[in-house]
C-alpha cells in the first residue's frame, strides 16, 4: 500500500453528517449549475458510426490540446470542469509533440473495426490437413517462436508507456491499448501456429538482445521509432515471406500484416508530428538511430529469424530451394530497408545516406 486517504472516513464527523443529510434528501447539486460547452456530436457518416473525430468538437477537441499539458495531471476527462484538489497521477508524458500524431483517431477506429480472433478466424483444421515439406513445417515453428518473442516485446512497449501518458491524450492512450491487443493477438496466433504444427523451437539470444535495447529506450519518441518503425517495417517484410507458406498462412499473415501496418502508420505519424513541431530534433533522432539500427540487423540476421525465412521462401532445404529462398529473403530485406528509410524520409527524417543498413543488406 503506498497511498492513503487523507482521513479515516469511518470516524470522520463531517462524513457522517454528509451521509445523514443525503439520507434526509438534502442534496447539494452544485454540479448541476455547471454550464459547459453543450456540444451534440453526431456521426458525420452513419455507415462509419460515431468516431472520435466526430467527437473532437468545441471545448472537447483534440486540436485544443496544448503542447505542454500543465493544467491536469488527474484522470479527469478532457474538457470536463476541473476542480481544485484533483490528485497527480504521476504522468511523465505531458508534451504533445513527443507522443501525438495526426492519424491517431483514424488508426484507433480502424484497429477496432479490423479486429479478428485467432481461435476462429484461422482455419486450423484446414491448416492441419495441408501438406507441407517437413523442413517448411519446422521452419514455420521456428519462425513463430521468434515472432512470439518479437510480439511479446511489441506488447510490452505500449504497456510500458500508456500509464505514464497524461489522460488528456485519451485518443492516444486508446490507440496504445489497441496496440496492446493487436500484439496480444500476435502472441496468441504465433503460439497456436507453432503448437498446432510440431511445437516451439529455439528462442533467440540475438533477437531478444536487440529487442530489449529498443524496448528500453529512454524516452517515448525514440522507443516509438525503434519499435513502431524499425521493427514494424521489418515485420511487414517478414510477414510477406511467411504468407507464402500456404493459403491458410496467407490469411494468417495478411491479418498480422494489417495490424503491423497500423503500428508503422502511427510511428510515421508520431515522428512527423514530432519533427514538425520541434526544431533541431532531426540530428538528435538521427544520432539515436545511428546507435540502434544495428538492432534491425540483429533481428533480421539472427539465425532463428533468417534461416526459417529462407527455408519457407524457398520451399525446403534442398540446395536449389535454399538458393531460391535466400535470393528472395535478400531481396525482401533490401526492400524492407528501403521502405523503412523511405518512411523516415516521408516523416521528415532523411538518413538514406547515413544509415549503415543498406550497405549491410546489399552485401548479401
Amino acid at each position, binding site marked *: 500500500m503506498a497511498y492513503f486517504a487523507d482521513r479515516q472516513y469511518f470516524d470522520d464527523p463531517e462524513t457522517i453528517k454528509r451521509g445523514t443529510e443525503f439520507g434526509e434528501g438534502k*442534496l447539494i447539486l452544485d454540479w448541476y449549475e455547471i454550464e459547459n460547452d453543450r456540444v451534440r456530436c453526431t456521426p458525420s457518416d452513419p455507415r462509419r458510426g460515431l468516431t472520435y473525430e466526430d467527437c473532437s468538437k468545441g471545448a472537447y477537441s483534440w486540436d485544443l490540446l496544448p503542447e505542454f499539458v500543465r493544467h491536469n495531471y488527474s484522470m479527469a476527462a478532457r474538457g470536463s470542469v476541473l476542480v481544485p484538489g484533483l*490528485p497527480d497521477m504521476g504522468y511523465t508524458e505531458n508534451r504533445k509533440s513527443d507522443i501525438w500524431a495526426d492519424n491517431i483517431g483514424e488508426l484507433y477506429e480502424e484497429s477496432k473495426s479490423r479486429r479478428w480472433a485467432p481461435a476462429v478466424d484461422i482455419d486450423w483444421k484446414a491448416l492441419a490437413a495441408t501438406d507441407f515439406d517437413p523442413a517448411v513445417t519446422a521452419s514455420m515453428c521456428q519462425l513463430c517462436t521468434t515472432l512470439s518473442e518479437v510480439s511479446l516485446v511489441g506488447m510490452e512497449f505500449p504497456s510500458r508507456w500508456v500509464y505514464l501518458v497524461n489522460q488528456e491524450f485519451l485518443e492516444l492512450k486508446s490507440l496504445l491499448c489497441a496496440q496492446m491487443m493487436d500484439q496480444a493477438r500476435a502472441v496468441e496466433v504465433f503460439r497456436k501456429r507453432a503448437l498446432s504444427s510440431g511445437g516451439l523451437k529455439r528462442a533467440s539470444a540475438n533477437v531478444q538482445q536487440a529487442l530489449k535495447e529498443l524496448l528500453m529506450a529512454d524516452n517515448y519518441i525514440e522507443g516509438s521509432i525503434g519499435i513502431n518503425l524499425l521493427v514494424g517495417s521489418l515485420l511487414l517484410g517478414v510477414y510477406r515471406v511467411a504468407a507464402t507458406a500456404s493459403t491458410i498462412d496467407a490469411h494468417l499473415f495478411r491479418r498480422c500484416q494489417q495490424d503491423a501496418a497500423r503500428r508503422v502508420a502511427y510511428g510515421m505519424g508520431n515522428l512527423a508530428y514530432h519533427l514538425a513541431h520541434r526544431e533541431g530534433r532531426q540530428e538528435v533522432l538521427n544520432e539515436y538511430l545511428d546507435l540502434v539500427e544495428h538492432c534491425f540487423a540483429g533481428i533480421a540476421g539472427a539465425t532463428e529469424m533468417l534461416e526459417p525465412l529462407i527455408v519457407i521462401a524457398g520451399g525446403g532445404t534442398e540446395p536449389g530451394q535454399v538458393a531460391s529462398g535466400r535470393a528472395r529473403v535478400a531481396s525482401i530485406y533490401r526492400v524492407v530497408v528501403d521502405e523503412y528509410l523511405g518512411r523516415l524520409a516521408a516523416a521528415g527524417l532523411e538518413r538514406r545516406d547515413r544509415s549503415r543498413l543498406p550497405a549491410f543488406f546489399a552485401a548479401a
Partner: protein
Amino acid sequence: MSYLATSHFLDDNEFVDKYLYSMRTGELDLSWMDAATKEVHCTSANERRGLTFRDLDVDGYGFSDLPEVVRENRCYAPRGAEIPDGVPDMQAGVNRSSDVWAYNVEGYVEEAMSRQWDATTDIAWTELQEAELPEEIGKAYAQLLTFLTEVEMIATDVPAKWMGQVNADFIEVKNFIALQAMDEARHAEVFRKRALSTGYGLMRASVQNEYNLKFLRDAETFSEASVTLHLQAEGNVLTLFRFSEYISPTDADKKMFRLVMQDEARHVGYGMQHLKWLIKHNPECRETLHAHLEEAENFLFGSIFANEVFEPFVILSGKGLKKENIDKGLVITGMFQMRQTEEYFERLDKCGLTDRRERSRLHEVYELTKQGLAAQGAI
C-alpha cells in the same frame, strides 16, 4: 541509453560473417531444427470454438505444469521454447504463479478476444441523435457519464503498469491484461462519446473518486492491485452498470450498459479467480489483503463526498428534481448501494475471504443501514 545489447550487430564480425556466409553460400546452420522441445500437434477440442489456449495446454507447453515459482525463464522466450545462452533478463518482478494466476484465465482471454465490440458502430448513434432528454435528466445523465469516462481508464493504467513485471511464462495473464486494457479504453470511449452526444457535454470531475483511483494505481503488489481493482472497484462498477442500465433514458443507452457490463463481468471474474488461487496457494497473504481492503473500504466510504456521482443517480432513478422524484430516487439509490456492498462481500466470501465481513467497518455500516431501512419498511 538504459540498455545496450551485448553485441553491436553491425560491428560484430562473427555475427556479420555468419550472416554473409549463410546468404552467399546457402550453407545454413539449421541447429534450431533439433531444438530440445516437445513435438506436439494441438487441435481444437471443439471446432466451433476454434483452437483455444486450453487446447494448447499440453506437455511441455501447458499452463497446468506451471510451477509456483518460475526460475528458468527470465527472458522474452515463449513458454516451452528452448532457451539458449545469452538471452537478456527481462527483469520481471512477478515470478510466482500465485501472484498473478487465476482459475480459467485462459478462458477469459478467449472470451475477451471473441467478444470485442466497437463503440463506434455497435451503438445506435443515429437513433440517439433523435433522443431529446429533458434538462434535468440530460444534465444528470451527462454528469454520470462524465464520472464513468473519468474512472474507466484506471483499469487500463493499473494492469498496464504491471505488464512488464509479469514473467513471460504467464503469457495467458499478460494477454488478459492487454485485452482488459482495450476493454477499458473502449469504455472510456463509449461514455465520452455518449456524453458528447447528449447535447449537454461533459460536466464536473470527481475529486473524491480520483483519490480512490490513485490508491488503485499505487498498489505495491499485483495481487493488491487486482483485489481492489478487479474485485472491489470493478465489482462495484459492475453493479453500477446494472443499475445504470435500469435507469437509462433510452434503449440504445440500455444496450451500451449491457455491452460494457459483459466486459466488466469478465474482469471481475478474473479478479475473483485470482483471489481464490492466491488464497489457496499462498494463504499467508490474507493479512496483507485485509489491510489493503481496509483502506480500500475507507476510500469507498469517503466517496460519500462525491455528490457529483450520488446525486445524478438520485435524479435519474427518481426521474426528476421535484421532491417526490428525489424521495423516490433516494430509496432506489439507497437500495443500489446496499446491493453493491452486499455483492462485494458475497464475492469475497466466494473467494474464501469469509472473515472480511466480521473485520470490516464497511460491513458494520452496511448492517446498520440495512436495519434502518428495514425499520422504515424500505426493504
